[in-house]
């Protein structure tokens, strides 16, 4: 049986859906009508949305994207390890470890303060410039190093905020059981802190996946560089659109998943 309240809410919902559908249709219609009327539309369509170029460059760009994925994949473990080490260094309380704390603070300030692209240039061109022998002058190595430096600084801050968010009573309980500071961190604090910052770190991963494209500036033929090559070859910008589409296919599901995790986390805590 439908209650009076349920019937009312169903009416309200129908009304809201109608309005939302109507306004969306109007906006879409305006876009479809107005954009093609722009004076440069024919030229833009030919150079950015060329179906033929799209089909022809898609397979090569997709395989170039595998380079992005490879750089991404081997960067992540280094970022995780270094980020954790820096986070722990910044939390070190023993007087002997004071230099470590200072180092951690400087590291984070420095590498969060420099634009990634600048660091890619500085490390990617500067260090091989020292005259390193092959294969140690590879831009793959030094580009990766630049990404690892930047992202481990961010991840360290995320982890540190996670560690600080664990209530002091957890630490007290562990200490009162006789656990050492070290065991308390390892078995009680860190496992909870890392779980708590999974969503924030997911967003880091999405950003990293996009920033791998910055390595195109120092040599590796990944998707952005490959698109640039096609652009010059075919005198057409469609390859960039292809690259954007390929990126979106990875980043949209990943961000949605991060949002899902974050919402679940928030709901669990209230």
């Amino acid at each position: 049986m439908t209650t009076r309240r349920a019937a009312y809410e169903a009416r309200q919902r129908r009304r809201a859906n109608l309005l939302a559908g109507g306004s969306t249709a109007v906006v879409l219609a305006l876009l479809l009508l107005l954009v093609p009327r722009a004076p440069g539309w024919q030229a833009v369509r030919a150079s950015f949305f060329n179906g033929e170029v799209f089909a022809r460059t898609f397979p090569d760009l997709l395989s170039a994207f595998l380079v992005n994925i490879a750089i991404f994949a081997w960067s992540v473990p280094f970022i995780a390890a270094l980020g954790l080490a820096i986070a722990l260094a910044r939390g070190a309380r023993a007087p002997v470890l004071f230099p470590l704390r200072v180092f951690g603070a400087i590291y984070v300030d420095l590498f969060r303060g420099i634009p990634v692209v600048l660091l890619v240039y500085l490390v990617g061109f500067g260090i091989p410039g020292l005259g390193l022998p092959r294969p140690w002058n590879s831009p793959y190595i030094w580009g990766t190093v630049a990404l690892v430096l930047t992202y481990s600084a961010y991840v360290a801050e995320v982890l540190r905020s996670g560690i600080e968010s664990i209530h002091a009573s957890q630490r007290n309980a562990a200490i009162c059981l006789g656990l050492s500071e070290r065991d308390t961190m390892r078995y009680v604090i860190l496992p909870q802190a890392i779980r708590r910052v999974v969503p924030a770190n997911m967003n880091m991963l999405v950003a990293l996946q996009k920033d791998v494209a910055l390595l195109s500036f120092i040599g590796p033929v990944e998707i952005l560089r490959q698109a640039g090559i096609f652009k010059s070859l075919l005198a057409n910008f469609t390859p960039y659109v292809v690259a954007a589409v390929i990126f979106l296919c990875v980043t949209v599901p990943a961000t949605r998943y991060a949002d899902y995790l974050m919402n679940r986390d928030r709901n669990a805590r209230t």
Partner: protein
Amino acid sequence: MPEPRLALRGVTKSFGDTAVLHGIDLSVGLGEMVCLIGASGSGKSTLLRCMNGLEPVDNGEVRLDGVDIAEPGFDLGPIRQRIGIVFQSFNLFPHMTAFDNVCLAPRRVLRTDETALRTGVQALFERFGLGGHMGKYPDQLSGGQQQRVAVIRALAMRPQTMLFDEITSALDPELVGEVLDVLRSLRDDGMTMVLATHEMGFARELADRICFMDKGVIAEEGPPETIFTAPGNARTKQFLASILR
């Protein structure tokens, strides 16, 4: 006269400018059960936390089996194995099962042999009626069950003295009984215990001695019968009148 298990002398403690304990003298004998009663803010919790060194005291002595553990710089690590504490808010580790919560410290600190540990811990869970809940996580247990796990966790370190900081205050009324039963059973074992509590009936039934705390001092202490029927201190009378209405 034998050395008391726990002896406090002239213990003072301040947080910043707020003095919380003004010179506490208290001794707890072997196998004795002492209940601290008093209004919130009277210093019961702080006193308990000073007894195991969780809060460093400003002045005075805290002697555990004759050793002054309040001496600045004293290594409290080994002491913590001999004196267990259970908190009002359980403080179980939420990312571990009840069983792992209990096993963590014996594994890492005592390095107990795994087979012996499992048998011993299982026996503790069964003794306190939680045999079927060992694999559950804290958020799958009721408050009373969580608090019993917290007691088991402290007991697994084989302490000789136990401190309980209002361990039933965060529980729904119908769950208080099962936790008090645990204390009763420890009492029967002859465990030395100090409790901060608002459970007056329980304190009266089981305590060897009641200490009434008021504004950071032990205003009155004595056997339960005396304290509850013929308190000598006006503030004790007032407190009991307000709580036993």
